[in-house]
């Protein structure tokens, strides 16, 4: 029984580590901030869940599984929220997703000045797709993100006008 548990938890841990590592590679290799965020945020949650599940099976002292569950809950809640907050901040500050149009030429407003990588060359992504990926987990994120820059500038301008 113990051995079986051990094997299951070993598999879970290995899978989790793989996910985590894949996320790390993604963060290194992806062409721009939004795609990197996509790699990081998905594997952050998934890998963490697997690793913690692996540890849970090992039991340990009485309080340990409770704490593990708490950690899992925390990560599960905070990690996507943090990703959302970050993407939102990036969009607010005017960082445009790097993207290509239908013909494969880069869009003029692409800001991430990375050497073109294989992923980037596929060239089918439209800007909308790109943001959509990052914010896919939270529909509201997309809405908020799309709305913010539009309403921010007028507000700032209005203020400027009033003061001067």
């Amino acid at each position, binding site marked *: 029984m113990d051995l079986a548990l051990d094997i299951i938890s070993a598999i879970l841990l290995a899978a989790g580590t793989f996910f985590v590592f894949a996320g790390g590679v993604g*963060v290194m290799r992806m062409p721009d901030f939004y795609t990197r965020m996509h790699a990081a945020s998905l594997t952050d949650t998934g890998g963490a869940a697997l690793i913690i599940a692996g540890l849970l099976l090992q039991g340990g002292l009485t309080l*340990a599984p409770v704490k593990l569950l708490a950690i899992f809950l925390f990560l599960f809640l905070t990690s996507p929220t943090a990703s959302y907050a970050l993407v939102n901040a990036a969009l607010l500050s005017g960082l445009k997703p790097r993207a290509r149009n239908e013909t494969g030429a880069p869009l003029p407003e692409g800001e991430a000045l990375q050497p073109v990588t294989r992923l980037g060359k596929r060239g089918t992504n439209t800007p909308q797709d790109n943001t959509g990926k990052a914010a896919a987990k939270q529909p509201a994120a997309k809405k908020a993100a799309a709305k913010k820059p539009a309403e921010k500038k007028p507000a700032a301008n209005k203020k400027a006008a009033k003061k001067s």
Partner: protein
Amino acid sequence: MMMEWVYFGACVGILVTMTLAVVRGLIGPTIFDRVLAVNMFGTKTVLFLAVVSYLSGRPDFLDLALAYALINFIGVLAVLLFFQSREVRRAAEAEKEAGK
């Protein structure tokens, strides 16, 4: 004994990922990439600590991992607020320019 090696392997895997995150933090290129790196690094540290506390046979040290998870979140929100206030400052500066 087998489990220890599994833990050890997991630790090394997480450590390598942490290194990747650090490298991303170092090369940027945008500041958001750096924040992303910090956030990711924090999450990986949580996992690392959790696994190490099992590896060393002291699961009572899981408190630490919990605390890290919390702190990490607060850090990201602080960054978000910082970006907002920066926008305001920029607007104010633009206004000053316009005033001249």
